[in-house]
């Protein structure tokens, strides 16, 4: 890999102190409170508006073993939930002042229920996300947002004003805007940043205030441009799927010659895709509701056609040669849609690999064999043939 960038060094330092990362420690030292968030659908704008720090909970970068979590969770609970829940049992998330998640799937909901039952967290709120794709969902969404505001008020004694919400929107939008700038750099013929590095960047964003992360992203983008970094590769890959944020897994793929140029995963593009667009005369809450409602390319709460459209558009923008459709075991929202997404890609002449794995596993053993075989099948000749077919 080319020269070590200062911003990347800083990002690795921050990640090395996961989960109670150094920026969170500083935040707490100033007497302020931290809220764990469980899903891309949790409106961080509202949490920032309350003067609280939202951090995205996740598990360690390793496969979860046979541990205490099994005593409390059903065997079909996915390894992502199992992983972070075990950390909660081990006291690694004891710095959290609360947890907000969504009823995005049963695993999310039940883990939150068990945490509440065991009194592992001082405050747990499950945010509802309307399922139905119509205009009637907006007023319902507004009710759920008000319920979240009320819960934060009751538990933390905070008043959230309209100007607080506007500030919250601006804070999160800046982060999204900078991540979008980084994404655009990855559409280049020789992108300046690898998929492994990108996941490290995104991981740091989960454990620090958005303002501070934004400054770091600005520094990184400036450095990438100044250094004129260009990463070559045999193939350009997209990762699409559920929770995936262990750099080791992506490093394993990139070692085999495939550069990951886009990641449409729960913790990648799907997390920050699209801004809250506050129109004139619109209430900030409504603007938030409209961003989260049917805008995220998540298979669970977004019409499938929109997910397909987002993925195909990104495939074209990033000139992707092949897509690795990653789904963690027992992830129902992704598991049920991945075969269909593969067919949509095939129709466009884009080969894909369906990869079922546990959250946190690296590219070793059988996973490596599958990825290697997939890359071997992406020969230039085979590609040309597919395009003409």
């Amino acid at each position, binding site marked *: 890999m080319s020269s070590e960038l200062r911003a990347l060094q800083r990002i690795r330092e921050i990640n090395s102190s996961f989960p109670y990362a150094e920026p969170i420690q500083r935040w707490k030292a100033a007497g302020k409170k931290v809220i764990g968030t469980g899903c891309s659908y949790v409106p961080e704008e509202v949490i920032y508006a309350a003067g609280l720090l939202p951090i995205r909970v996740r598990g360690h970068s390793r496969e979860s073993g046979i541990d205490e979590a099994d005593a409390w969770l059903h065997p079909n609970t996915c390894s992502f939930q199992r992983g972070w829940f075990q950390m909660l049992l081990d006291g690694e998330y004891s710095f959290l002042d609360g947890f907000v998640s969504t009823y995005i799937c049963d695993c999310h909901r039940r883990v939150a229920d068990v945490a509440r039952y065991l009194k592992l967290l001082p405050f747990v709120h499950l945010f509802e996300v309307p399922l139905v794709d119509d205009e009637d969902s907006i007023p319902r969404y507004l009710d759920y947002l008000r319920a979240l505001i009320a819960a934060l008020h009751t538990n933390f004694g905070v008043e959230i004003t309209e100007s607080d919400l506007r500030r919250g929107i601006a804070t999160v939008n800046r982060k999204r805007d900078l991540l979008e700038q980084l994404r655009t750099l990855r559409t280049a013929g020789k992108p300046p940043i690898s998929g492994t590095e990108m996941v490290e960047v995104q991981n740091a964003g989960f454990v620090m205030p958005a303002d501070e992360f934004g400054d770091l992203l600005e520094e990184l983008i400036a450095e990438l441009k100044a250094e004129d970094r260009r990463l070559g590769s045999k193939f350009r890959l997209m990762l699409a799927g559920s929770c995936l944020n262990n750099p080791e897994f992506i490093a394993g793929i990139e070692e085999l010659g495939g550069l990951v140029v886009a990641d449409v995963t729960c913790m990648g593009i799907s997390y920050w895709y699209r801004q809250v667009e506050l129109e004139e005369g619109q209430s900030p809450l409504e603007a938030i509701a409209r961003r989260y409602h049917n805008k995220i390319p998540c298979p669970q709460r977004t019409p499938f056609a929109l997910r397909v459209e987002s993925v195909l558009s990104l495939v074209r923008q990033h000139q992707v040669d092949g897509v690795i459709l990653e789904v963690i075991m027992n992830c129902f929202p992704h598991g049920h849609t991945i075969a269909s997404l593969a067919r949509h890609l095939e129709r466009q002449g884009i080969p894909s690999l369906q990869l079922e794995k546990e959250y946190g596993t690296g590219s070793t053993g*059988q996973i490596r*064999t*599958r990825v*290697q075989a997939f890359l*071997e*099948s992406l*020969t230039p*000749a085979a590609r040309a043939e597919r395009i003409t077919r």
Partner: protein
Amino acid sequence: MFVAGIDIGSRAAKAVVMEDGQVVSHAIIDTGAESAKTADKVLREAIRPVGLSLEDIEYTVGTGYGRCLIPFANDNISEISCHAKGVNWCMPSVRTILDMGGQDCKAIRCDAMGRVVSFVMNDKCAGGTGRFLEVIADILRVPLEGIGELSLESKEPIPFNTICAVFAKSEALTLQKRGVAKSDILAGLHEAIATRAYNLLRRVSPEPEFTISGGIAKNAGMVAKVKAKLKLEPVFWDEPQIMGALGAAVFAAERSALAASA
């Protein structure tokens, strides 16, 4: 000019030596604890009968689980690509391959050039693979080589709803104690494994020209069951177990020619 393909599988290691597009010799041994030693041993076994020395081998490609751990290999290529390559070399009309190995099972579809078009693999649980059959043969005290034939003698196969080695083992033991014929137990287990293989095959949309490779391809009982489910007649080459090593050797020949011309 001699080239070699070495396939270090989970249960067996295979080597194929080729010269000018012809197979010169091959060997199959049990996989030892260390891939490097196993690779060295299996290659020596393959070259000994034809009077070659290791220095005569100009290019070696490794494949299989231990492919990255062969110090003297020039390249490593996944066993999925190698099976497709090997099959294409000896049976060019074949487009669908079912590879039934020691710890996994793969369905592969390839094109006229032997390139992989799509593939699926069982997940990391080794239930219903070669290792599973070994366990069952062991508890029923039947030689592994004989279980397939014995399963064909069954009059009333016992349905098995599991391919979990642990559950199937206790179920088979219970049945045996109750006096159920070994052939009926084996027929049921073969049926369960064949169903699983059939489901894998369906996921790659099999084409009529079809073969079975890997160690289990030598099991007549399994071949009969897969054939009946798929309603397709598989074609076979002399030694289906060395298909991965054969493909690796074909790749080795191609790559050494490419290196020589460069």
